[in-house]
């Protein structure tokens, strides 16, 4: 066990200001350039997992010539092991709405949407109350940027931004070809900023604290804090706001049950880190990035079962349009079953690893590309568990 615990942060879940929407009211008095400069200075990168620099996304969208623009908050939190957005929307929705409104002002959008996953529909009554408050407040400060909620209906892939637009447009949630990117052609083909729930809160907090204060947290590559969703074989599962850039061994010391053999960082689409690599693994954009999901597995768990569960998940949650993802996921699942049963020689795992590499290279969107992350990291590190 560790002598010093990881530093707890309460940037995200810290209390609201005393005055309702104070940060928003103050921020919209500033120029767009000032706001963007602060964001750039803060080094904030998207909290959904991919880590795109937020300031750049906003600037590009603000520069896209269009009378119609949108801000979308991606609350389609579907990554297994992730539940922080639910917590954020439950506890500090005002911060999310403030972040969205700041974005609306900066890029010149007329409307904001929260795309909330269907599984979180129960959040709606409280969220709507806050949105009502917000909409009234926005009007009172002369900000013409109403926000509404759109619900998902049970499709993991809609967390992929272009699939989310398709869903909002009434279509099947099938990811689009990129380019064009949302900064020029997003919802309804218009320039759109789409950010994760947590990213918007970070924006709001940067506006409140200033970029210098924000930058004190984390490392050079991974500024700020992160809300982690900790689950699996841990005595203390739950939501924790920690600094980015922490070494995994310290995390395991604090959150593991003393018998941790692997940590899945970033959910089913993330990477599996085995015990022997805990020491050399940094959680952050310079190491293993994560949207916040940290799943711990102790030595009683079969990594074959874990992988099988993930693959079944992907098989069902793939949109099915592109070949590598639709068929590849089925092949990987069926393939490890065949090896386990002895219908295929263990060498077949190498064939499957090559296939997962091809999926990573050729799939149309992030889902298909990321199946290889968990597949290869689990198969490489726990090969014997796949066979025997």
């Amino acid at each position, binding site marked *: 066990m560790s002598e010093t615990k990881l530093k707890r942060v309460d940037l995200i879940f810290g209390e609201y200001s005393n005055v309702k929407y104070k940060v928003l009211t103050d921020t919209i008095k500033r120029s767009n350039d000032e706001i963007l400069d602060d964001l750039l200075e803060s080094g904030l990168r998207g909290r959904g997992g991919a880590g795109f620099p937020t300031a750049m996304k906003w600037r590009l969208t603000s520069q896209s010539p269009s009378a119609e623009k949108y801000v979308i908050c991606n609350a389609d939190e579907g990554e297994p092991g992730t539940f922080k957005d639910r917590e954020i929307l439950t506890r500090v929705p005002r911060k999310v709405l403030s972040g969205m409104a700041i974005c609306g002002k900066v890029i010149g959008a007329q409307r904001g949407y929260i795309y909330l996953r269907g599984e979180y529909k129960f959040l709606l009554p409280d969220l709507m109350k806050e949105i009502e408050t917000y909409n009234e407040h926005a009007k009172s400060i002369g900000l013409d940027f109403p926000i509404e909620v759109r619900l998902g209906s049970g499709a993991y892939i809609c967390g992929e931004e272009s699939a989310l637009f398709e869903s909002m447009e009434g279509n099947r949630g099938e990811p689009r070809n990129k380019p064009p990117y949302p900064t020029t052609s997003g919802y309804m083909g218009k320039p759109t900023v789409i950010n994760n729930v947590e990213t918007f809160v970070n924006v709001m907090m940067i506006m409140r604290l200033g970029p210098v204060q924000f930058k004190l947290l984390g490392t050079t590559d991974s500024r700020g804090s992160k809300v982690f969703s900790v689950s699996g074989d841990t005595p203390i599962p739950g939501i924790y706001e920690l600094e980015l850039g922490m070494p995994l061994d310290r995390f395991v010391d604090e959150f593991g049950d003393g018998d941790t053999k692997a940590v899945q960082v970033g959910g089913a689409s993330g990477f599996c880190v085995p015990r022997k690599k805990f020491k050399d693994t940094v959680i952050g954009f310079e190491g293993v990035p994560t949207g916040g999901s940290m799943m711990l597995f102790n030595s009683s768990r079969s990594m074959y079962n874990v992988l099988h569960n993930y693959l079944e998940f*992907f*098989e069902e949650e793939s*949109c*099915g349009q592109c070949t590598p993802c639709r068929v590849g*996921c*089925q*092949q990987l699942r069926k393939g490890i079953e065949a090896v386990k049963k002895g219908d295929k020689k263990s060498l077949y795992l190498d064939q499957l690893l090559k296939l997962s590499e091809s999926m990573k*290279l050729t799939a149309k969107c992030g889902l298909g590309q990321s199946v290889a992350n968990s597949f290869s990291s689990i198969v490489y590190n726990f090969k014997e568990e796949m066979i025997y």
Partner: protein
Amino acid sequence: MKNTNKDMKKQINLTIDGIEVGVDEGTTILEAARKLNIHIPTLCYHEDLCVAGNCRVCVVEQEKVKSLPAACAMPVSEGMVIHTNSMKVRLARKHIVELLLSEHHADCTKCYKNGICELQGLASQMLTGDHLFLDLVPDHKYTIDMFNTAIIKDDSRCIRCQRCVRTCEELQAVSALGVAYRGNHMKISTFFEHPLFEVVCTNCGQCVNRCPTGALIERNYIDQVWDAIYDTNKHVVVQTAPAVRIALGEALGMPPGKIVTGRMVAALKRLGFDSVLDTDFTADLTIIEEGNELLSRLKKALLDKDPKVSLPMATSCSPGWIKFIEHTFPEFLGNLSTCKSPQQMFGALVKTYYCQKRKLDAKNVVSVSIMPCTAKKFEANRPEMRSSGYKDVDYVLTTRELGIMIKQAGLDFESLPEEHFDSIMGASTGAAVIFGTTGGVMEAAIRTVYEVVTGREIPFEGLNITPVRGTEGEVREASLKLEKVKPEWSFLEGVELKCVVANGLAHAKKVMQDVKDGKANYHFIEIMACPGGCLGGGGQPIPTNKDIRTKRKQAIYEEDMGMSIRKSHENPEVQLIYKEFLGQPLGHKSHELLHTHYTPRKRY
């Protein structure tokens, strides 16, 4: 179109396989590579359709980019360096084709598309013999929809490229086919997976033309036709549609745009048909009937001021269009010309007039038609199409099926002599030939109607009424002022006849919506269900694209120009049939045999 500097697109320079090339901004890698004659394999890509980028067969390697972009969907950018045949690309492509094969019921020798299947072609190119992956076919509950008279849909051969879905939506605005479910269960499906005959499918067969595998094919009647030919008790009559003669060559290895009328006739005779006749004959007859019908409607509207007369009048030759209007605009069924299509007029006359002249018992006559169309198969099976007392047309074969029969018979098509259609019902005119292209019925009708009304030949050079010649992808409007008309048509003096020509059901929908919304004020509407008209029909040789269709179109006008008679009313056999059998246009016999009515169908 003028190409001003302002319109000029920015040039982008890139390197593909070591060759530098400059292309317009917005060009895709695939298009740029084709300019260099580098062939990147594709499956879901089709020139006629929007880019889907879902099969991923066309992936290429881009330097400094980790993943392999799909060439069909990735626009070029300045300084891009592309490798289309690197080691990474070859392995990825092979994997993709292997994956497709693993969920594909690959019993190729039992498949109708054996030998012309695009997936099979790729598989042989990639040497997929080693079956890298497990067979997934048993894991899927694939269904085969064999209940339809025109099109068979076999999900076990589907590779989910969605070409059919895009065709049905973008070209035809029908969307009878859609994508359903997701992930491993994703499939191409009708509404609630109903059989095709229960949904809004028009049987146009455009999906069949574009399906890369055997998942969507026409229902073939080749064996039934052979049986009839071999049956010595049967007299087998065959009719050939205008658009077959300019496309059949493609099915037999010839380049697009070849006129093979004489060779086609020779082949049909050698296959053993007892009489080789021409749908062109009833195309001319259609013009007489339909032209008179138009004039009679105009008379009722303009002279008698009859409020019940339905104008505009719309053509009724295209069975895909008929089924479309039955589903989508049933309130306009009264605007359809009551004329049957040339195929069905022909069928009705074969088993009446023809039998009478040739002293045959209709029950021993088998009537076969060769059509560029799959919807004609459905049409021939309609209950409305038995006015001879028998099924007027027994079997409909597509251009493709005729191609197969010619191959089966071992004929060397290209070296066949040019032979002539038999008589009677074998004579045709240039006006009939152009039925095969969009705008053709309109032009043929105007050639006749104008002359009937004014007593003068239409004043266009070479009778080529270019303003009504339709173009793919557009709705063409034209008007014709009638002046110095004959006394009996005085109510038409100074009338501006407003016409519109549309091809492809997406455009048909637009025209009809305008009519419905009162935005358009037409007298006469020509609609062909397929892009480019019958020459782009769902029964024509595969592949199809704009280039090929343009060549077919040129061939049709060439054939028209080469005919000694260019106007339907001058067809001697048409004149004869009125004298001997029908009496007069729109007469009692005509109504009995050549006209019909259609009934509304559910849109949903």
